[in-house]
């Protein structure tokens, strides 16, 4: 962790209710549950921020309503909101989200990750980098970077169920 924090005093938000609205269909093994925005949100909400012992959900970086899933068309669109417009961690946060979804979602999904429009001063550059799979592949061959990503993903499986006990 760096000595000088990019955003030393971030706003911390309350966790939303963790559990999804359950329907009878979800208990019926004969019915396939399509992947939806809630499922994708659950996968990424508890990723840790690279510089604070808080989850992306607690920092309002990821929000349920900014995820769009079309299961039939194999499409997942995730928008995230950096905590500050000049956040130099934006690419790393986006990379963590990408790796999490790469490891968790069925291979058929095409995932697009972007910062929410107007929330980052280098929006175009960050978006371009995050969606260039060759550069993502090269980044993930960097042992140090991969370690940082894995650290951020260590809490990802909490799926919003537990506040990180730091």
């Amino acid at each position, binding site marked *: 962790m760096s000595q000088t924090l990019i955003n030393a005093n971030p706003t911390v938000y309350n966790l939303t209710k963790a559990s999804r609205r359950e329907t009878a269909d979800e208990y019926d093994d004969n019915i396939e549950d399509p992947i939806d925005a809630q499922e994708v949100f659950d996968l990424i909400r508890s990723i840790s921020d690279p510089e604070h012992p808080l989850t992306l959900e607690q920092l309002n970086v990821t929000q349920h309503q900014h995820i769009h899933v079309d299961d039939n068309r*194999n499409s997942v669109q995730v928008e995230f909101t950096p905590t500050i417009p000049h956040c130099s961690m934006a690419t790393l946060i986006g990379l963590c989200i990408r790796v999490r979804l790469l490891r968790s979602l069925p*291979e*058929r999904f*095409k995932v697009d990750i972007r910062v929410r429009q107007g929330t980052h001063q280098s929006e175009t550059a960050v978006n*371009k980098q995050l*969606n*260039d*799979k*060759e*550069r993502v*592949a*090269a980044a993930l*061959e960097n042992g140090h970077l991969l370690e940082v990503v894995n650290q951020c993903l260590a809490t990802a499986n909490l799926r919003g169920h537990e506040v990180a006990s730091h």
Partner: protein
Amino acid sequence: MPHLELLATLEGHQDRVWQASWHPTKTLLATCSGDKTVRLWAPATPTDFTKWVCVDTLKGAHKRTIRSVAWSPSGNEIATASFDATTGIWERDPQIADWECMATLEGHENEIKSVAWSSSGALLATCSRDKSVWIWEVESDNDFECLSVLQEHSQDVKMVAWHPKEEILASASYDDTIKIWKEDEDDWYCADTLHGHASTVWSLDFNAAGDKIVSASDDKTLKIWKQDGGKDGSWTCETTLEGYHDRCIYSVSWSKIHGLMASASGDNTIQIISKDGEAGYRSVAVMQDAHGVHDINGVAWFPTQTHQDWLASVGDDGLVRIWRMVE
């Protein structure tokens, strides 16, 4: 209506496959992968083209992904470009009956994205995320001398391709442009910059005459560029092909034999595009889900008349496929 028929599926790579390159004359295909190897594939028998085997594996020389592979025009050497920032030059040693890395070209600061031999085999070009294009002179005894370091792209350079006959090089970049490089009295310079794509240009290829270029981009379009006013004329966009792909186009191959273009995309499809009239082009065949649900990273037409209807494709599924264009 023409369509693509699957001839063979080649299994062996342990990671995504990035590029396929045909031997200049033989029925021999080289493919490179995130598994740090190049595999060479050939039909199991000289007459049955439905069964292919991996006849050689080039390994050990690169520490990271091999992004690009290219045969020299003689077919005696293979060049490999790796994310480890080196280019490997390989030769087959008949004594041990295996391919060996005879030279390693160093100099780029980070990942090398593409490597290409000039038509005469006298020059080699490489390009990198370090934004530069390097031109190497091929000397005897696996000696390579760097002739020029071209640093005019403002971003990651994705691909280099030589003119089919002359010593003219084209490069495609993350800065959304294509640059044309020429030599004037041992001095390489940027002769033209082609603006028009709205995002990363991933791939390009010349036509047989060398007076046109097709380029493929993350903006989901293909563009055809043509050179005006003879040899020294500038390049202008003749046409933009839109609506054929829904996602990033990673590769395009322009057959020097029959003139058809093939494009491969993150939308899982291969499109075959043909000239239609004076300046028009249209898709004459499409293969959806050519690698199942996976991105297709590379396509390459067979380079000679013998099997001119063959197209190789490689994908994120780690597979290599050989297709036949059937009328």
